[in-house]
C-alpha cells in the first residue's frame, strides 16, 4: 500500500510529498526523499530520517514504525565529528 509522507530535507527550501510503500525500509524512503531534493541539496553521507525528533531505524519498514499517511519526516545529515 502506498503511504504519502511529507518530507523535508535539511538544506532544502520546500516540503515534498514522498510516496512510500508500507513495506519499504526507512533507508529507501530517505534515499527517495534525497533524490527528490537533489537539484537543490547536495548529498552528504551519512544521513538519517527523523520523525518528531526521533531517529528512525533505517532497516525498519514504514508499516513497522506506524508511519501513517501524511506524517512528517525530516532528513538530516550527520555532522562531521570535530
Amino acid at each position: 500500500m502506498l503511504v504519502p509522507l511529507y518530507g523535508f530535507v535539511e538544506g532544502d527550501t520546500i516540503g515534498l510529498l514522498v510516496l512510500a510503500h508500507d513495506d519499504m525500509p526507512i533507508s529507501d524512503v530517505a534515499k527517495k526523499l534525497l533524490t527528490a531534493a537533489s537539484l537543490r541539496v547536495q548529498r552528504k553521507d551519512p544521513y538519517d530520517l527523523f520523525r518528531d525528533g526521533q531517529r528512525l531505524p533505517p532497516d525498519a519498514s514504514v508499516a513497522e514504525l506506524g508511519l501513517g499517511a501524511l506524517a512528517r519526516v525530516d532528513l538530516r545529515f550527520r555532522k562531521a565529528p570535530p
Partner: protein
Amino acid sequence: MLKRDAWLPLSRQLDWEFSYVTPDSAFPELAAGVPALGQSEWDTWEEPFKTSYTEYVEQQSRKEAALEAVRELLNQRKDRLERLDPRWVSALKLHFAILPLAEFAAAIGNLRAARFGRSSAWRCASLLGALDELRHAQIPLALGHDCLSRDGQFDWTHRFYHTTNWVAIAARRLMDEMLLCCDPIEFSIATHFVFETAFTNLQFIGLSAVAHEVGDALFERLLTSIQTDEARHAQIGHAVLELVRDHDPERMQALVDKWFWRSWLVFSVVTGFTMDYLTPLEHRKKSFKEFVGEWVVEQFSASLASFGLKKPWYWAEFERSLEYYHHMVYASAYSYRSTVWFDLVVPSPAERAWLREKYPASFPEFEPIWASISERWRGADPGLDFAVHGTAIVSFCNLCGLVLSHGTPSHNDAEVIEHQGRRRVFCSKVCRYLFEQEPERYARHHDVVMRVLRGEAPGNLLAFLCYSGLSFDDWGKDALRGEYDWIQRTEANAGVR
C-alpha cells in the same frame, strides 16, 4: 445652486429613518458585520478624504487620459517588450496575472459595503472605491492584452484566476476570503486598513520607483495611476477602525493579526520576487527587505500604534520571514518553474553578492542551493530546462495554499495536525493558528496534494502541467534559457548533457 462645500456634506451623508422595515432587517448582522453599534454612532463616521461624484469623475478621467497617452505612445513601438530585460518582462507577467481579477473581487467587496455599510457616508465612499477597483481590473487587462501578440504568456493576465494552477488556487483562497466572503467591517479592516495601508505602498510607490529605474514607463504609470485611488479609498479602513475599535478591540486586533499574515505571504512572493530577483541588478536601489522596513515595519507599525493596536503576536516570526521566506519560495519556484506562467532566472554571482550584502543573516544559507542548481546547468545544454528541474510532488499549506517554504533551509517550519480524523499540514505556526481559530471557514479547502491523492489531479509532472492550464508555449522556463556567461561549460561535462 449650492456651492461645493455646502453640497458635499448633504450628498455624502444622506440618512433617513426606516418606516416599513427594521434597521436589523435592512442591515442583518450576517451581511453588515459586527459590532452593529447604534445608528447615531454610525452617523459620526467620517472619511478624511472627501470627494463628490463630479470631482471623482473629473479626476479619474484625467488619470485615464494620462495613462492612455503613454499607452498609445509606447504601443507604437513594436519592440517595447524586447527593449525590456527578460527578467523584468517576467515580473510584468506575474503582476498582470495577479492584479486584475483580484481588483475585480475588490470591487465586489466594496459594493457589499456600498449596500451594507451602516453609514451612508461609508456607503458613498465604497461606491467610489468599487469604481476604482473596476478601473484597476481593466487597466492591467488592457495592458496585458497589448502584450499578447508579442508573448503568449501574457494570456495569463486574464486566464490565471480561472485555472487550477497552484498559484491561482492560493491566490483565490486569499481573494475569496478577504474580498468576496467578508462582511463590510472585516473587509474594511482586511482590505483598506491592512492590505492597502500596510502593503500596497510596496507596489504602488516602491515598485513604481523600480519600474522607473528599469525604464518601463507604462508599468510605472499604471502603478502611480492606481496608487492615487488606493490612497483615497484606503482611508475608509481608518474611519471604520476609528469607530469600532473601542467597542470590540480584541476582534479588531484579531482581524489585523489574521489579515496582516495572509497579505504578507502574497506580497512577499509577488513583490519579493520582483525586487530581489527579477529586477536587473543595475536598476536595484533597495532590497525588498529595505522597502518593507520603510513601508511596513515603520509606517504600518506607527499606524497600528495610532489606533491603539499592537503589532501582531507573531511579529518576531514576521521579521524572521522577511529575511528568509521569499528566498525560500523563489529557489523552490525556480526549481519548479514549469508550473508557473512566467520565466525565472538563476541569480548570477554578482546578484548573489548583492543579496549577501542585503541579507547577511540569511542569504549565505541559500548559496549551496544556487551552487547546486548552477552546477546542474553546467552539465546541461542551454534550453534543456527539464535537466535542471524538480520532478517530485511538492506540498502545500492547507490554509494559505502556498508551498511549504516557511522557516529556513536548516529547519522547515511546517506543522502537521489531526483535525476531524484528517491530517492537515500548515506552512507555519501562524497559518496553523489561523486555521484553528476558524476551522469551519477553511476545512473544505481542496488542496493540490489531496487532489493528486484522490486521483482528481495527475501525479506526474507533465500531466500536472496540463491540469494546471499550462502548455509548452506558456509554461515557465529559465528566462535566459540557461545561457549564463558565468557558467563555464567544459568538454569534461559535455558528456553528461
